[in-house]
């Protein structure tokens, strides 16, 4: 019910969890640097983006407390990612500009 006073999220993340997440983030940071040093062609970008998404998820879930929040917060957090995804479809313009001769072709 809407009028119910929802319990404010009082979940306290243990220091140990925070430290583990921090260590994981630092590990992923090192992995990003190492992965960039290995020449894998187009896969370098995919690996870098995958690590970046993993880092962002850890921050959202633990440091921003989404993991311990209500479903509604999950929906809004998911929506923000969805919107970011829509913005990324801009890439479609760049990938298809040369497909057809016309004002848009480079």
């Amino acid at each position, binding site marked *: 019910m809407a*009028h119910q006073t929802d319990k404010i999220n009082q979940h306290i993340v243990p220091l140990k969890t925070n430290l583990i997440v921090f260590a994981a983030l630092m590990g992923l940071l090192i992995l990003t640097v190492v992965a960039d040093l290995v020449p894998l062609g187009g896969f370098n970008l995919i690996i870098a983006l995958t690590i970046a998404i993993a880092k962002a998820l850890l921050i959202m879930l633990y440091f921003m407390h989404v993991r311990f929040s209500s479903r509604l917060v999950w929906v809004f957090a998911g*929506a923000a990612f969805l919107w970011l995804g829509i913005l990324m479809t801009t890439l479609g313009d760049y990938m298809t500009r040369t*497909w057809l001769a016309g004002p848009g072709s480079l």
Partner: protein
Amino acid sequence: MSVTTAAGPRHGDYLSINYTIRSWFLTTDHKRIGVLYTITLTFLFLLGGAAATLIRLELVTPAGDLVTSEAYNKLFSLHGIIMVWFFLVPSIPTTLGNFLIPMMIGARDMAFPRLNLASWYVFLLGSLFVAAVVILGGVDTGWTFYTPYSSVYANTFVMATAAGIFITGFSSIFTGLNIIITVHKMRAPGLNWFRLPLFVWSLYATSLIIVLATPVLAIALLLIGLERLLGVGIFDPALGGDPLLFQHLFWFYSHPAVYIMILPGMGVTSELITCFSRKQIFGYTFVAFSSLAIAILGFLVWGHHMFVAGQSMYGGMIFSLLSYLVAIPSAVKVFNWTATLYKGSISFKTPMIYALSFIGLFTMGGLTGLFLAALPVDVQVHDTYFVVSHFHYIMVGGMVTAYLGGIHFWWPKITGKLYPEKISQLAALTLFLGFNLTFFPQYILGYMGMPRRYHAYPVEFQALNVLSTAGASILAVGYLLPIVYLLWSLRYGQNADDNPWKATGLEWQTSSPPITHNFEQTPTVTVGPYQYSPENPEEFTPQGGQHD
């Protein structure tokens, strides 16, 4: 059953509880903040209107003889920047939205009252930047800030203006967040989502767009700053950038922003149409969900601004197709309003005249939007007066008309005073006439090929331009009259009843003007909105159980 009681401004209401300036500038009362916003926006509207007046005067003659081309560039830039970011985007959410949302849902205030006041101060700060730009010499990029002109070549106050808009964006986000959380968390007992007034649905959808889209505009403006001030190559091809990237980022915000501007107007119209036809809204669920559909689909169409800008042909085709889709939920609303009128007991009070004007003008603006969504037609009329007329029909004919309709409808609640009906009806009709005379000739001008943003034009376009300017002078009367008689009514108007329109919403079940905390006791909602009876216009069932 009638719930009207003799009343008027009474001791202890939100206006008379404290008269000090401090009590206004430090208020956290959503109603007072709504009033502060209304006053601020009125001044900004007049400033933007002054620029429009000079534009129309310049265009009376084919020669560029009133102002220089540089001054003309600054005039249309200023007009667009002020009207879009400092009037239309905040207009209804911050004024009527702030005032009404807590009252419509039976709450004492917004979820974050201090954030609400902060949003006004942040808005003021952003407005001061623009005021400074006006005094210092203006900006000439147009409201769209297209790169690389804005990021490299423009020799005017681009960064100061962009900073003002950047700051104002935070004010928008504060308001949007506040509305979303208020609607989620503070509804009165019994007020489930499908008992919410449609105004609340539309403001909720608007707030979603505000929160999701505004950061992208902030990023785009920040990137202009990076390129302009630090020479980082982002948009300038000479530095390895892509000018179209700016247009992508800009329109990713600014097209949804069109729906930030129009959705609240649709919400107001839904309230007015039901009340003055004394009928339940036709297809409540469809109208409610069409707001959300517009909010979502509005995010998928930004590329239709770039059909001839060099965007991929495939991108253009997809954006063209997607743009047609937005017409569906918009049409759902128009058809439902029309169906609501059918067999209603219609009265042509001033707010209703505005609401009917909204439907007509929005429909014309919307249908010409479909012309523009069609790729080949857009290639023909892109950057002509056809486009100018199209978006003015939506934003001015639609949104500003709905805003005025809403201001008149809730004026008795906001001020405790009645406005004079006859002159108000005359003003509403003047506005409708003046608007069409101003902007309909612009459709023809655009179709004939007159480009926008030029201060001189071939002589064959003069007759239509003179008509347009004549219409603008009538339109100006339509805008100035309400300012005069509404101010007059504050002192000389009759005291208003609590519910002069016999409306069903919770906001009408408290005093006019309301007490600081809105309700003596939290109302319990037992029925859906708009329980009117067209057979007996005096009969209605209010939403709350506080009165009988």
